[in-house]
């Protein structure tokens, strides 16, 4: 497991905190990622014409927005030391519910959106409830629910898309604010801020972290671990639904295949962003900013490699190699800092 030091959102208040705070920041995963991103961005911007064109920046930003949201959805359940294979299925189901509400039932968007998110939470609740009550690992439960949620969706829609949504939906996908910045990225940034506050400043958020890190100790401290774990799954469901809606805006339609077969296409970005960002798979520690940076890192790398026009079939191998080199470089940075006694 990566040894991420604690949250960079820690307030650097009284005297004795300041010294170690700076060092910790320098050692943190987030800092390393930010450094790598800056480096990659700089190199690509200088060597690849078109990389910094407004269109390219717009698509990169939009991709970061969506992938981060998917990552956050998974992160919310990784907190418990569990996982949710059904994030993709939930996202697509919620998007299809949204499509139905907005296109067929004529529900106005300001109502359809929260309804779809609530629907995602309900699916998350089902996952959480079964996980807690059965005591079976969430891997198996969500493996089954992934199949069931997606199966019901495909059965009901017969794999047909909703492609006559109100025009505001596709418009959202193309909307740019402040030059090349996608509105979807802005939405994600807002959610990131909210989640950072949630995990740091609310009882429920803290209880989630405690229950995830050591369920027994949390239980013995009077936390209702079962309910908290269900809440984590609900948060996951809601965020997955939001990611589904964002993807719907990007696609301009609610499409059953937008997360692939069973929604499995989401699994990679879902795990990659949080884990790169320093969220522990064993639970108990999250990094919202890290997840954002993780998604940004992967998106920028992918984008740069595509622009570099590496032989079409070799791109994947290069991507893997870059990822490996990046984490190795970050590890090296740690070691050098430590050896120099700078921390």
């Amino acid at each position, binding site marked *: *497991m*990566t*040894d991420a030091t604690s949250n960079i959102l820690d307030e650097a208040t009284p005297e004795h905190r300041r010294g170690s705070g700076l060092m910790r920041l320098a050692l943190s995963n987030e800092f390393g990622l930010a450094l790598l991103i800056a480096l990659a961005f700089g190199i690509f911007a200088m060597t690849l014409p078109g990389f910094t064109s407004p269109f390219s920046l717009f698509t990169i930003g939009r991709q970061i927005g969506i992938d981060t949201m998917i990552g956050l959805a998974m992160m919310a359940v990784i907190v418990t*030391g569990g996982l949710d*294979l059904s994030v993709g299925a939930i996202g697509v189901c919620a998007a299809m519910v949204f499509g139905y509400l907005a296109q067929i039932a004529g529900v106005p968007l300001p109502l359809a959106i929260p309804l779809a998110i609530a629907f995602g939470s309900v699916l998350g609740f089902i996952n959480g409830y*079964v996980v807690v009550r*059965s*005591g*079976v*690992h969430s*891997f*198996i*439960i969500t*493996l*089954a*629910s*992934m*199949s*069931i*949620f*997606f*199966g*019901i969706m*495909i*059965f009901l829609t*017969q794999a047909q898309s909703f492609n006559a949504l109100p025009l505001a939906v596709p418009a959202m996908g193309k909307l740019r604010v402040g030059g090349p910045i996608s509105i979807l990225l802005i939405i994600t940034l807002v959610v990131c801020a909210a989640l950072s506050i949630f995990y740091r400043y609310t009882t429920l958020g803290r209880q989630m972290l405690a229950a995830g890190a050591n369920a027994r100790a949390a239980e013995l401290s009077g936390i209702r671990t079962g309910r908290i774990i269900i809440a984590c799954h609900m948060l996951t469901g809601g965020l997955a639904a939001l990611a589904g809606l964002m993807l719907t805006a990007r696609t301009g339609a609610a499409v059953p295949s937008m997360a692939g077969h*069973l929604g*499995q296409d989401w699994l*990679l970005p879902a*795990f*990659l962003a949080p*884990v*790169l960002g320093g969220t522990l*798979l*064993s639970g108990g520690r999250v990094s919202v900013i890290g997840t954002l940076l993780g998604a940004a890192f992967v998106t920028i790398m992918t984008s740069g490699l595509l622009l570099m026009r590496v*032989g079409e*079939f*070799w*791109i*994947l*191998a*290069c*991507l*893997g*190699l870059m*990822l*490996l080199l990046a*984490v*190795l470089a970050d*590890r090296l940075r740690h070691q050098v800092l430590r050896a120099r006694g700078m921390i």
Partner: protein
Amino acid sequence: MALSFTRIFDNDWVGPGLVSLAAIIGISIFQPSFLSPFNIFVLLSAIAVNMVIALGQLVIIGIGQMNLALGAFGGLVAISFVAVMELYGVPPFVAVIIGFAIGTLAGGASGFVIARTGISAFIITLAGLQIFKGINLGITEAQPFYGVPQSVKDFGNLSMLGPIPWLVLPMLIASIGMWYLFTRLRIGRYILAIGGNRTAAELSGINVTATVIWAHAISGLLAATAGMMLVARLQIGQPTIGDDWLISSFAAPVIGGAVLAGGHVSVAGTFFGVVIIAIITQALVLFAIDPFVVQIVLGGLILWAVGINRLRELRVAKLNERA
């Protein structure tokens, strides 16, 4: 007496075993052809490959990590295996050795990086997945290799004895080998010790680096075996081999009682986990389920199988409490 009864029911494999048995009996009542020799043959062929895949993940689960690159190893070995036979006319026997070597080296390399850098196995094997899958695509350009020699095809196609395919042989060797490894060999115990409590293992003087490398090398070797078995079964070197291994490679061990956090695995349990998944897959076909509801039924059956096992565990816990 009651105690020994509880003991038996305490075993991880009993639950999945009972579920498999119930499923076999149930299905064969409604579909007598389920137990026809050819169907048994087909079932065993599927089980054989999937078991070796699951074992490849089981070692890594045992040490408390995960190997996302399992399928990429398998795919790369599969196409290399066929490629050296087709392009260089290497005899199958030598090609198998080459395949083993590639798998073991790939696994060992990722184990080395994980152990030496201390970076999460998730990230390293993910990078490995992309690298090895990328090499696979780079070599094949998504085109299959067709030059599978008849002897290899026969191995994947013919029966060893009655309805038992030859493919069962490597599975048996791998299963017994892994069972022996986990219960009797030093390396297996060290793998589980590290999975169970890494700090304790380290402080006790276990060479964690070497053990992690071993585990990943074994995982690579098993992935290679499964990849080549699939070539024999599919009769063709498909570049897509291994793409869909990941989830089932975890599902079978977990159904079989493995603890995802590491330190506890069951080879027999995993076997029945594989059997359950194979039976479910078959049942959906045998009963001509509408393709649009197949996924729903599949999910339901997984829950059912897990639920039964869970009931057993609760019973055992109750009996233990009383004892």
